[in-house]
C-alpha cells in the first residue's frame, strides 16, 4: 500500500516544525523513498578519479538498483544498469577493475564497457532479426560530471543538475578548490554498516547542535593526549552557521572542523593562497560539511556516500580525498586527521553511529508521534533565491531536508 499523501507527515508553520516518527520506521515509506527520491533526483554515484583510465569501471547502486560506472576507450563516462539484457544476470560482480568488455557468466552474452551489446553466443538458434532492438546494457538516462563528482538520475525528465544544485553550488565549488589544482583523487573507502535509517546520516552530517554532547568524549580525549592542540568544545556552538536549500541540500560551516597540525596547516594555506589569493583561501578552508540531498556529504577530506539498505539499516562509504597540487606531507596529515575522527574506527564517527542505533531503537515507540525540528526557526535569514541561513546549532538544515522530502514524496513541485 502506498501512502497517498505525505503532506500530513510534516507540520511546517512559522513557529512549529514537526515530522512524524514513522518516516524512520515504516518499511512502506522506505520503499516509496527509493522510488520517489533515489530513483528520481540526481544522486551521487562515483568520483571521476575512481575510473581515471580508459576501461576502468566500478559498480555501485542508485537506491537499490545495481549500476556500472565505466570509462570507455574514447574517454566517455557511462552509467549502466548492471543487468544482462538476456535473462537478467548480474553482468559485473567486481567492485572495481579495468576491462574492455563485460561478459555475462550465465549464457555468455558480451557487452563493451560502453554498454553496447557485441555478442550473443551461439546465435544460430535465434531468428536473424533477433536482438536488433537490444542496443546493449540499459543506460541510466541522465549523467553529469561536476567538478569530478559523477551524478546520475534514473528519471528521463527533470531539472538540470545545476538547477538541482541551486545555492549549494557555491559551496561545492569551494570544496573542489580545496585542491589548488581543483583536482582530487579518492582512495579505497572506509565502509560502515550501521543500524539506523539513512536520513539520520543526512541530518547529522549538517547538524551543529550535537557535537558538544555526542563528541565531548572524543574532544576531551584529543585534548588529554599529550602534544596535541587542546580545544575547548564549549565554544563550539558560537562560531559558524548553517545554510539550508530548497532541494534539501545543506551546508554546515564551522571554522576549524578539521584539526591539522598548525605548521602543516600554514603550509597548506600558502599553497592555496598562491593559487587563489588569501581571501578566497580563507573561504575555502572555512570548514564546510555539504549535504547534496539525498545521498552524499562532502567534508574537508572525505566524500561520504549514504547507501540505504532497509528502513533500519544503512551503509556508508566514506572516501578519503587526496588533494592534487599539494606536497605529500599535507595529504598525509589530512589522512591522519581523518583516520582518528571519521575512519571505520573514528572516535567521532563511532559515537554518531551509536546515536543513530539508539534513535532507531527508540522510535519503535510509535506512541511518540512527532519529532521536533523547530530550533532557531524564527531567527532564520532568507538567502534568496533558494536558501535560508541559521546559527550553527539551529535546525535549518534538517528543515531543508524535510521540506524537500515531503515535496518529492508527495510528487508535487515546489
Amino acid at each position: 500500500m502506498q501512502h497517498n499523501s505525505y503532506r500530513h507527515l510534516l507540520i511546517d508553520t512559522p513557529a512549529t516544525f514537526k515530522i512524524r516518527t514513522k518516516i524512520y520506521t515504516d518499511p512502506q515509506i522506505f520503499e516509496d523513498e527509493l522510488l520517489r527520491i533515489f530513483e528520481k533526483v540526481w544522486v551521487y554515484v562515483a568520483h571521476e578519479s575512481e575510473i581515471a583510465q580508459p576501461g576502468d569501471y566500478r559498480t555501485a547502486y542508485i537506491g537499490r538498483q545495481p549500476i556500472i560506472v565505466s570509462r570507455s576507450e574514447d574517454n566517455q563516462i557511462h552509467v549502466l544498469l548492471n543487468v544482462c539484457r538476456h535473462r537478467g544476470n548480474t553482468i559485473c560482480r567486481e567492485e572495481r577493475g579495468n576491462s574492455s568488455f563485460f561478459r555475462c557468466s550465465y549464457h555468455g552474452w558480451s557487452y563493451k564497457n560502453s554498454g553496447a551489446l557485441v555478442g550473443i553466443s551461439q546465435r544460430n538458434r535465434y531468428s536473424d532479426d533477433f536482438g536488433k532492438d537490444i542496443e546493449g546494457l540499459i543506460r541510466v538516462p541522465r549523467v553529469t560530471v561536476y567538478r569530478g563528482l559523477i551524478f546520475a538520475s534514473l528519471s528521463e525528465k527533470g531539472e538540470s543538475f545545476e538547477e538541482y544544485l541551486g545555492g549549494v553550488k557555491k559551496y561545492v565549488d569551494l570544496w573542489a578548490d580545496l585542491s589548488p589544482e581543483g583536482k582530487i583523487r579518492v582512495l579505497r573507502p572506509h565502509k560502515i554498516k550501521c543500524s539506523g535509517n539513512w536520513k539520520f546520516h543526512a541530518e547529522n552530517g549538517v547538524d551543529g547542535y550535537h557535537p558538544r554532547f555526542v563528541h565531548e568524549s572524543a574532544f576531551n580525549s584529543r585534548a588529554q593526549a599529550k602534544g596535541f592542540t587542546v580545544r575547548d568544545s564549549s565554544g563550539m556552538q558560537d562560531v559558524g552557521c548553517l545554510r539550508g536549500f530548497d532541494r534539501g541540500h545543506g551546508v554546515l560551516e564551522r571554522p576549524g572542523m578539521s584539526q591539522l597540525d598548525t605548521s602543516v596547516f600554514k603550509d597548506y594555506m600558502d599553497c592555496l593562497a598562491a593559487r587563489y589569493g588569501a581571501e578566497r583561501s580563507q573561504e575555502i578552508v572555512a570548514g564546510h560539511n555539504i549535504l547534496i540531498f539525498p545521498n552524499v556529504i562532502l567534508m574537508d577530506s572525505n566524500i561520504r556516500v549514504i547507501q540505504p539498505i532497509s528502513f533500519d539499516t544503512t551503509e556508508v562509504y566514506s572516501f578519503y580525498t587526496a588533494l592534487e597540487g599539494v606536497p605529500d606531507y599535507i595529504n598525509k596529515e589530512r589522512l591522519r586527521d581523518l583516520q582518528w575522527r571519521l575512519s571505520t574506527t573514528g572516535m567521532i564517527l563511532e559515537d554518531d553511529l551509536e546515536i543513530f542505533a539508539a534513535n532507531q531503537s527508540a522510535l519503535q515507540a510509535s506512541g511518540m508521534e512527532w519529532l521536533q525540528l523547530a530550533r532557531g526557526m524564527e531567527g532564520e535569514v532568507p538567502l534568496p533565491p533558494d536558501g535560508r541561513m541559521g546559527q550553527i546549532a539551529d535546525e535549518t538544515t534538517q528543515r531543508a531536508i524535510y521540506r524537500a522530502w515531503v515535496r518529492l514524496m508527495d510528487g508535487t513541485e515546489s
Partner: protein
Amino acid sequence: MTLTPQEAEGFLYREARLLDQRHFEEWLDLFTKDGIYWIPIVDDTDPEQEPSILYDDSALRAQRIFQLLHQPHYAQMPPSRTVHVISNVEVENGDREGDALVRCTLVVVEIRPGHSQQFGLGKQNSFAGHCEYRLRDERGWHIALKKVLLIDRDLPMPNLSFIL
C-alpha cells in the same frame, strides 16, 4: 635474544587477557614507543598514504584508550565484552638480534550486554583475521607492529570501538 614459540604464545595470550579484562593501560605498555597498531583495508598499502580501518601510533592509541576508559564514549556504553582467541602461532626470528616476526590467527567474539531490541546490544558478533606482530626486544619483548588483516576488511564494518 631469540624468541621461542612458547615465549611468543605466552606474549600473545597475555595480550589477549589484558584486552579481555579491559586492562587497556597495561596493553599500551606492550608496545614500543614507535609501535604501530594497524588494521588495513587493503594489505600491503602504505598506511600513511591510504586509508585504513585503524592506524594508531602511540599518541592515537593513548587517546583511544583514554576515551574507552575515562570518557562518556557512547559506542562503548555499555562496554564490549570480548574473548580473544589466538591460534596457529608461528615464529620467525629476524636477522638482527632482538627482532622477531610472529604470525597467528585471531578470532574475537564480542557482545555488548543489553536488550536485543536495542540495536547494537544483546547480539554476539565475531571477527576473524590473520595477525602479524613485529616484536622487538627492548628490555623484554615489545610490539613494534601489530597488524590485523580481517577477512572482511574491505566490506562494511559494524561498530569496532573495542580493541581487536
